[in-house]
């Protein structure tokens, strides 16, 4: 531990704008505590799960909003409740299964039981225990079960994805995404039924914000990721655009693949491999789908908790769960559509070799984030510089810009009051 990360000096933010971020923003536990409070525990929508993970009445899934564990459960009326996983009695994190089906939720400690909306149902010895003609114990006369339900989040289920927010006064989810982001969300989640393909989970020893930044950064993919630049999946000479919402907090990186190969953007790029060919090309067996309507890549960063990936035929949600300032858990949920042919499902699964903790592309990202965190820890008073494409903030029609990172920190500074 470096004592400087616990310094009480105010953060030195560059007066010029959000293009410079103090390293301490990523390592200071006090900053982290405020971030959890303002971004995850209040009026921001957070990703919870896909609807297809809990399709039937009683189906539940244990997951997290920020650093708080929650249970997403579907009731017999078809609605989803998201309930915080601690008993209203003595605080036990009573649900110890990752998924399952239940008719009620019961804490094993004193058998307090809740219905699937989190209302307290049963309290043993509520009216005491009769013994030798008298009644021993029992809860006080003014004890009301209705005062002791589980913490219940505000929930919206939108075209196959469940979101939750601790602050019930949060704006409607569609407004939260805004008119710039919504069409891109509805392009992937257009109401078609989804199929769950499976999970990948990794713990990345870096601050949670770095993963949002990584997917708001179109500068690195054509440089760090050999596969992207060599096979034309993402590179600086592509038809691209960078879109953000009015607050600068959410974004979409949109691009169309080209044929790859040599060009201006590969000059001096050591990761470009002119002679690289695959011995088995099925991993890159890309087949365009009608719903793409053009772009081959759309990467949505919904602040603060999730990334939604369309990389050619591979689809996933990537859920960010902070673990203190120095790490986050990154949960990948790959999915397809219920009407996919078996060939399309196989294609999505093959292309998944590019992504996740061992993927040809994504493994690099976790590694560089870990290296960033190490750099921040060794010199917390230093600052990052994200000035590709200038210092201003706004949507652009190319991918040679760090505008989306600046947009996020413009918003961050407003909410954090820094």
């Amino acid at each position, binding site marked *: 531990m470096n004592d400087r990360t616990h310094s009480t000096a105010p953060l030195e933010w560059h007066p010029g704008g959000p293009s410079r971020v103090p390293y301490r923003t990523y390592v200071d536990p006090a900053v982290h505590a405020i971030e959890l409070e303002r971004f995850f525990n209040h009026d921001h929508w957070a990703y919870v799960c896909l609807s297809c993970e809990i399709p039937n009445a009683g189906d539940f899934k244990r997951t997290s909003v920020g650093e708080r564990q929650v249970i997403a459960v579907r009731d017999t009326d078809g609605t989803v409740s998201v309930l915080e996983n601690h008993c209203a009695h003595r605080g036990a994190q009573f649900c110890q299964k*990752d998924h399952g089906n239940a008719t009620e939720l019961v804490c094993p400690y004193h058998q307090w039981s809740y219905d699937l909306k989190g209302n307290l149902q049963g309290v043993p010895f509520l009216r005491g225990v009769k013994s030798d003609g008298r009644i021993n114990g029992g809860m006080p006369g003014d004890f009301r079960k209705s005062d002791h339900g589980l913490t219940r989040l505000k929930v919206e289920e939108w075209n196959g994805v469940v979101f939750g927010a601790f602050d019930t006064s949060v704006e409607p989810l569609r407004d939260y995404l805004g008119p710039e982001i919504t069409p891109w969300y509805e392009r992937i989640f257009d109401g078609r039924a989804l199929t769950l393909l*499976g999970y990948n*989970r990794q713990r990345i020893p870096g601050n949670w914000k770095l993963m949002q930044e990584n997917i708001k950064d179109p500068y690195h993919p054509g440089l760090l990721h050999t596969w992207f630049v060599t096979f034309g999946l993402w590179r600086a000479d592509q038809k691209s655009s960078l879109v953000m919402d009015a607050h600068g907090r959410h974004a979409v990186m949109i691009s169309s693949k080209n044929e790859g190969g040599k060009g201006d953007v590969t000059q001096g790029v050591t*990761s470009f491999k002119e002679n690289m060919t695959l*011995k088995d090309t099925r991993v890159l067996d890309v087949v365009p789908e009608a719903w793409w309507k053009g772009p081959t890549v759309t990467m949505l960063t919904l602040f603060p908790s999730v990334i939604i990936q369309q990389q050619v035929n591979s689809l996933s949600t990537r859920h960010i769960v902070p673990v203190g300032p120095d790490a986050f858990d990154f949960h990948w949920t790959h999915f397809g559509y219920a009407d996919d042919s078996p060939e399309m499902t196989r294609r999505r699964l093959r292309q998944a*070799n590019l992504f996740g903790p*061992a993927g040809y592309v994504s493994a690099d990202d976790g*590694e560089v984030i870990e290296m960033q965190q190490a750099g921040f820890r060794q010199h917390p008073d230093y600052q990052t510089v994200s000035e590709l494409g200038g210092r201003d903030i706004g949507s652009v029609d190319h991918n040679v810009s760090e505008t989306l990172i600046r947009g996020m920190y413009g918003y961050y500074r407003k909410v954090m009051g820094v």
Partner: protein
Amino acid sequence: MNASANNLPSRLDPFLRAEVEDLYARYSACVDSGHYEAWPGFFTEACTYKVIPRENHERGLPLATLAFESRAMLEDRVYGITQTLFHQPYYQRHSVSGILITEVTSSGIAVEANYLVIRTRSKALSEVFNTGRYIDRVVREDGSLRFAEKCCVFDSEMIPNSIIYPI
């Protein structure tokens, strides 16, 4: 897992067992040595190789962390490991135990074994990296045993950042 005594061959050829154990010992030595170019040679041309979370495996979810369907895909992975995947280098050390031959049929030898992989990065403490069970099918090809299927089902709920080298 087919580990019940009923599925075991009544009399297991000790030479076959020795040969299978030798295959696993040579495999571990290869993937721990850093000579990844020799790794695909342990597989048949039409092999399958998977590294899959136990969670997906047991729930019948098809997604794997890595899923290759030919020796050629393994050769592409070796190129990825050695030429394209940026990563912090590390040593890995496999410990394979409880090698269990569960079935011997005309389509091959079904083998299961526990594995534990320890990762050691530069100037860092050694740490448990990945642990699980191999569920494999081994066949004889040109006189030697090779993997026709290798499925690494890992218990490790969270991958410590990334998996680069072969398990």
